[in-house]
């Protein structure tokens, strides 16, 4: 039997050694790890417009992803809930040191009150006009789900989507990410109705055929499907003030041209 003193000394030394090793590894690799995370997110955002790219972002190298994302084709804007564009200082005030829209952490924003949230918007200039990529976040069955939705210049038609999740069931809820057929179902659907009012795109059990505002869910993943639907309707609504502003300014320009 060892004395209590021995045990205390032994455990203290062991913990100190372990703490030093781990904190050393953590701090030396932290920078690259953060970079990896950023590239991972950039790849997901680019994947939502993959139909308009030369190569699939999944097969691009890290450098290509960064080059495309930070290049001239991609413009990033941060918005508040009233649709006002935010400057880099205001983004920093919200707690993101980088001061760019891509630094906005949607998980943190989801915890804030709705009025205080800020939103990232990515404008990708494709050969067929600008695509507006919005980020949405909601809840699935077990944990959070999120996605990026690319809208065409009419702010209504979906050009592509990507989804991801934290812990949905493999084979059921996780299919929103694993099965490329599910995000593909959204392509071509409409967020606005014929009168230009916001309707959203919901996920339903069946009956989506011919309906531009509904998408078939995955059988066995009802709760995840409801979560995706809720996230789509609510998340894209946040961006409507900004889209309406652009539309009215475009309308004004058109009016001037007509005169």
């Amino acid at each position: 039997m060892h004395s209590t003193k021995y045990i205390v000394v032994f455990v203290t030394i062991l913990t100190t050694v372990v703490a030093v090793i781990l904190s050393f590894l953590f701090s030396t690799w932290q920078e690259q790890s953060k970079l990896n995370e950023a590239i991972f997110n950039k790849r997901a955002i680019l994947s939502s417009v993959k139909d308009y790219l030369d190569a699939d972002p999944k097969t691009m190298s890290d450098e290509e992803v960064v080059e495309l994302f930070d290049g001239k084709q991609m413009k990033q804007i941060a918005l508040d809930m009233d649709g006002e564009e935010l400057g880099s200082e205001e983004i920093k005030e919200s707690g993101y040191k980088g001061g760019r829209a891509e630094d906005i952490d949607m998980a943190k924003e989801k915890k804030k009150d709705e009025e205080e949230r800020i939103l990232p918007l990515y404008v990708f200039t494709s050969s067929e006009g600008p695509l507006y990529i919005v980020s949405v976040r909601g809840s699935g069955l077990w944990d959070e789900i999120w996605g990026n939705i690319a809208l065409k210049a009419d702010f209504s038609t979906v050009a592509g989507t990507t989804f991801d999740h934290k812990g949905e069931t493999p084979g059921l809820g996780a299919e929103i990410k694993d099965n490329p057929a599910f995000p593909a179902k959204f392509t071509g659907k409409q967020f606005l109705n014929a009168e230009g009012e916001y309707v959203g795109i919901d996920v339903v059990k069946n009956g989506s055929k011919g309906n531009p505002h509904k998408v078939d869910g995955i059988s066995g993943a009802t709760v995840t499907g409801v979560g995706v639907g809720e996230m789509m309707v609510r998340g894209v609504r946040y961006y409507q003030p900004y889209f309406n502003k652009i539309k009215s300014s475009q309308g004004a320009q058109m009016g001037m041209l007509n005169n």
Partner: protein
Amino acid sequence: MADTVVQEPKIEAPKEPLFGKKERKLITDPLNDNNPITVQVLGICSALAVTSLVYPSVVISIAVVFVTAFSSLFTSLMRNAIPKQVRMIVQLVIIATLVTVVELTLKRYNYPIYKELSVYIGLIITNCIVMGRLEAFSMANKPWRSFLDGIGNGLGYGAILIIVAFIRELFGKGTLFAGSPIQINIIGASNSTTDYFINTAADGSWFGWYANNNLMVLPAAAMFIIGILIWIHRSWNPKLVDIS
């Protein structure tokens, strides 16, 4: 009378070969006769959870081999200094440290697979195989042997994991190594004829009736695949047959 000094007889310590019969047995035993999953029935949790695809299973197997090997080595090196009263906690600290090293390494060098495995890397800490080997073997054996025992058990675990993942991915998704640079598409429906080895959507395909079995993707499939593996293993290896 200097010449009468009795020379102390030199006690030759029995030399332990690096890879003697016993050492080899330490590695091969857990692969077959004493497999952690099919015989000891340890580590079932993660075997059910991560085996839906081959690639993550391979990664987690490598991680487990690393953790079992080095936690066994370090525990064995310290076995005489570890106070018996807190030995479990000390073992846990060693395991947790190594698992954190694995986690940080993946985050640094392969972020997508880190995302894919998410919580399961952290859960290696609670994998019964690791702690079980430390308690049963490393606390009473020399470092080199403990190290080999750790590698053996990690490999035994990994082998079953990869077999299960192979079956599940092939019949559940029609692919192998999905998500890795060497993804192979075996069977499935596609408009492009080159996408899959066997394209069920092609005109005149003999496999037009085939559809992927969605059950294979669910954890339940791993449960009965492991069950069947245990059955096959026991009927094939006479040493495992209970004579009672």
